[in-house]
Every structure is written in C-alpha cells, then in structure tokens.
C-alpha cells in the first residue's frame, strides 16, 4: 500500500482496488499506518485522501533498518548461490563438450 503512495496522494478506493482489498480492510490498514505515523489521511467531503507522512528522524532510521533487512535476505541467498558457483568452477571440465 505504501508503494501505491510513492507517487502521490491517493484515495482509499484507489489504494484498495489493485490490492484486491475490501474498503473496510483498506481503511483498517491505513489506520495502522496512521498509528505508526507512516501515513497521513485528510478527508475532503466523503473522500479519504492518504499520503506518506513526513518522517521524524528516529523513524527514518527504522525505515532504513527494515529495508536493509529485506535486502540482506536477498543477498544471503546470493551468498549461497555464489558458493555453489565457486564449487562448480573448481570441478574439472572434462565432462563438458567445450573444446577449450
């Protein structure tokens, strides 16, 4: 949902639709994000407009750490793959058809 808000203010319907969420579920999700001060909501008539909240300094660090952990998970899998590729390179290539 925060991904949707990267590109500016959106109303609840716009946020819910591509995520195949019901309106109440989307509203609840936004409420939690509001509570965490990640999202700010303003109400214009009957429309609830949401946008990413400007972040206090401590929160910025938390965002960074969370982001880091997600990418660390990618890279740990890459570590494992690289170990496998290194082992493959050490094996003799006699079984390969490559004339080199």
């Amino acid at each position, binding site marked *: 949902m925060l991904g949707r808000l*990267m590109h500016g203010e959106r109303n609840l319907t716009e946020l819910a639709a591509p995520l195949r969420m019901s309106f109440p579920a989307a509203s609840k999700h936004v409420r939690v994000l509001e509570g965490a001060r990640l999202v700010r909501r303003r109400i214009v008539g009957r429309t609830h407009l949401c946008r990413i909240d400007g972040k206090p300094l401590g929160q910025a660090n938390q965002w*960074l750490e969370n982001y880091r952990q997600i990418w660390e998970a990618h890279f740990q899998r*890459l570590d*494992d793959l690289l170990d496998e590729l290194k082992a493959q390179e050490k094996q003799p290539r006699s079984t390969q058809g490559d004339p080199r």
Partner: protein
Amino acid sequence: MKHLLEVTTPSDVEIVMTRTFDAPRHLVWNAMTKPELIRRWLYAPEGWTMTVCEGDAKVGGSFRWAWNGPDGKPGLTISGVNREVVPPEKVVHTETMALGDGVPVGELLATVVLTEHEGKTHLRMTLLFPSKEARDGALASGMDRGVRAGYEQLDEILAAMQ
C-alpha cells in the same frame, strides 16, 4: 566470515547499498545478470511465486521479473531497460514497478558497480528516484510488509521507537 549490507541515503532522492561477497567478480556478475541465476536469489515473500524472469544484459536490452501473489493472480512486476552494460563491472538500468495487473508506475535509475579485491567482490548499488516522496515510499515499503505480516512486526517496531 559474514558480510553485512549497508544502506545509506546520501541525498533526498537516493538509496545506496554496499556489500561484499566472497566470490570473484565474474561470478557475482553472472548471478546478477543471468535470468536463470537471478531467480534463485531474488527474494519473494512467502506464498509468492516468480512467474517471469527474463533479461537481456545488453545496452538497450530489457528485463522483466514478475510474481504471482498467494492467490495465484499477478502480484508484482518489475521491469526496465539497460542503459549501460560494462561486463563484469557496471550496469545502469531503469526500473518501474507494477502492482497487480496495473500499469507500471514511477521510474528509478539503478546503478550497480562491482569491484574485485583479493578474490572478493564489492557491490555498490545506487537507486536514484525521481522525487523524495518516491524514495521515501520505497524505503517505507519494508514497513508495509511488516503491517501485512499481521501487525506483529509493526508492534515491535513501534515499541522500539518509544
């Protein structure tokens, strides 16, 4: 030895990631540019399935990665075009993201630089966003995942923020 990823924000519109890998550069290059290897490490949340992983590591070549969500329907597509490809040391590519079967939104410029030293490879990945809001949204998307994981992780994060 364990290498840790470092994430920094040198400006309002950038995210920079640096990390070292215990492997020579040509292997890291292969793992990051060959689709059949990319799909083995590019992380997807539990219940998600990678359905498309294709790419052409040439200047002007495009790439596309797509996942189905836990409901079996299109969940996320990341695609882009290679602007600069210098094997085995540098790639610059554009990157857009589409949720569900929606249209791609936003565009960032990713620069990956690999340097080798004594058999190890140092990675520096710079993500350049069109605005601070886009950059913040990308950073915050990790928090969003915590929310989806049943609010538990977010509770911990909130407790840590007190």
